[in-house]
């Protein structure tokens, strides 16, 4: 039978198709504890109240469940006997929520409507309090670790993917040119192994695009590679499998970082995107240190080598460091870059300060301003300036 699960700040309710309660589990009457439950559920944890409720439902043959949360839906589906789907059409839920005060008073949980209001108000306050303390505690250090992990993973993945390709190339050299994506390549090796297994249906179920399926299977049949027996391939397949796991870890890390950056540095992220923002914080050492930097330092952050070189040899100082990776900069013609870099750095510096000191979000405005200034620069300096003396070189002889 079907049931809809509704999570509220007072507890979890299971409703039948008519919207009446079949089971319920209240959270603690301590607002702090109820707030904890809310937070755990939002993270997709199956809290004790939920698992008790599920047991009751199981006993009564409710096996098809609907819930408003994607993560919880997939977690519940993993439990034997349940099929749980995410549910967005919320009219049943909404009606139920609107009557929650009356309902819970009737159930004897609260003495009257005011009692209900007082409790839910305290829970909401506790949720917000928890959110500001947990979010402000040195989260930038986590972002720094995450971006470094991401870089490590990318290096490792390149190394392993290259190894997988080279090794498997002994057996099926033609595949190298046919599959560009490292992840897909590793998956084929891990799932299919011997090139004899590259049949149309198998390739299709690996999600290879139609046009390629035929080509790959033909090449597999006529491959010039050495034949291999299963023991030859075992270790290689295991390497491929682990490489795929690392790809998954990489993607999860990136997702984590994106979420985190939006929270801890929304303004910086609006301008640079999550990854580059994390990288620039990583180079500065912390968000606070980034915020303290003058924008001229920020502009060349990440170009320390070039900066030292210029100090030592008198070559031209760098105009931009890591911010060069910003789309607007590296697509700009050379003579505009210094000017654009200056605009970018000055707004980044404002963004970093607001983020560090917890001010409001003005990211959209900053982006708008930057775009406008870039347009002006493009209009004002449409072509390369007349050749100037490259003073840097000649001065170099002095040192």
């Amino acid at each position, binding site marked *: 039978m079907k049931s809809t699960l509704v999570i509220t700040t007072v507890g979890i309710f299971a409703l039948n198709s008519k919207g009446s309660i079949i089971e319920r589990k209240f959270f603690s009457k301590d607002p702090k504890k109820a707030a904890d439950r809310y937070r755990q559920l939002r993270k997709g944890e199956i809290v004790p109240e939920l698992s008790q409720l599920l047991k009751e439902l199981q006993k009564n043959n409710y096996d098809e469940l609907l819930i408003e949360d994607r993560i919880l839906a997939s977690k519940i589906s993993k439990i034997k006997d349940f099929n749980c789907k995410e549910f967005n059409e919320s009219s049943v839920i909404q009606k139920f929520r609107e009557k929650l005060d009356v309902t819970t008073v009737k159930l004897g949980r609260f003495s009257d409507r005011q009692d209900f209001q007082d409790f839910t108000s305290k829970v909401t306050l506790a949720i*917000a309090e928890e959110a500001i303390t947990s979010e402000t505690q040195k989260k930038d250090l986590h972002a720094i670790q995450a971006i470094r992990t991401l870089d490590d993973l990318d290096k490792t993945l390149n190394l392993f993917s290259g190894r997988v390709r080279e090794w498997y190339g002994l057996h099926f050299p033609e595949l190298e040119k046919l599959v560009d994506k490292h992840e897909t390549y590793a998956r084929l090796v891990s799932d299919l192994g011997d090139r004899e297994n590259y049949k149309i249906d198998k390739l299709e179920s690996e999600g290879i695009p139609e046009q390629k399926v035929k080509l790959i299977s033909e090449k597999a049949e006529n491959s010039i590679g050495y034949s291999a027996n299963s023991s030859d391939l075992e270790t290689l397949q295991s390497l491929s499998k682990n490489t795929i796991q690392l790809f998954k870890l990489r993607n999860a890390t990136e997702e984590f970082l994106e979420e985190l950056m939006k929270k801890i540095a929304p303004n910086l992220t609006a301008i640079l995107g999550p990854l580059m923002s994390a990288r620039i914080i990583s180079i500065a050492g912390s968000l606070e240190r980034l915020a303290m930097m003058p924008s001229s330092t920020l502009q060349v952050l990440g170009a320390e080598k070039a900066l030292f070189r210029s100090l030592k040899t008198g070559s031209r100082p760098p105009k931009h460091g890591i911010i060069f990776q910003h789309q607007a900069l590296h697509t700009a013609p050379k003579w505009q870059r210094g000017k654009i870099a200056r605009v970018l750095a000055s707004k980044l510096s404002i963004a970093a300060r607001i983020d560090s000191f*917890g001010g409001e979000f003005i990211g959209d405005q900053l982006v708008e301003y930057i775009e406008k200034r870039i347009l002006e620069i493009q209009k004002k300096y449409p072509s390369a300036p007349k050749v100037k003396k490259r003073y840097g070189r000649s001065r170099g002889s002095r040192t």
Partner: protein
Amino acid sequence: MVEVEVHEHDIFPNVFLVKTRGQEKLATRNMVPGTSVYGEELVQHNDIEYRIWDPYRSKLAAAIKKGLHELPIKQGERILYLGAASGTTVSHVSDIAGNTGEVYAVEFSQRSMRDLIEKVCRNRSNVRPILADARVPAEYRLLVRIVDSVYSDVAQPNQANLFSDNADVYLKEKGRAIIVIKSRSIDVTQRPTDIFKKEIKILENCGFHVSEVIRLEPFDKDHAMITLGR
């Protein structure tokens, strides 16, 4: 003793006019007597304490001063307040809504939220702080009930859409709303009236009727306030 005279506002219950030393000022009845939220003046009259409501500090007060005709915020009602900041205006909205009302105060800056909690929510149980991004209304669906009105002051370029997305989820059928819109854009070449028109157009396309547009000069040069409903 200074002479103090207090009248309720002609059309807005729970909004007061306090006259001292020949000056008439807006005020609300202090829900937490003895505490001032952001340094505003407290005035006693017949055993009731009022908080002076400064139109230079709060755009809603400015709009009332400039002759707003309709105040969607009423005693005992539920209000969704987007862009609560540290609670200057929220605190007066809380006074007006009273103990039986509920103000859902959404703000995504942590610093502002901290102030909001400390200065406003700790002693006003009718204000519920929600740390969330108002661009994603679903984020707080477990915390907010259907509301009688929405007050939106997020100071974002996409504010019309942000408001409408929230209204779709939380505003009751015949609900009313107030939005603060920027009259001066970063783009100085655009005239204020053009900017209003653009915003109003977006709102109308989302199915709203704008009933008034109030410029806030001289209290605030950058913004205007509009009231609307479905």
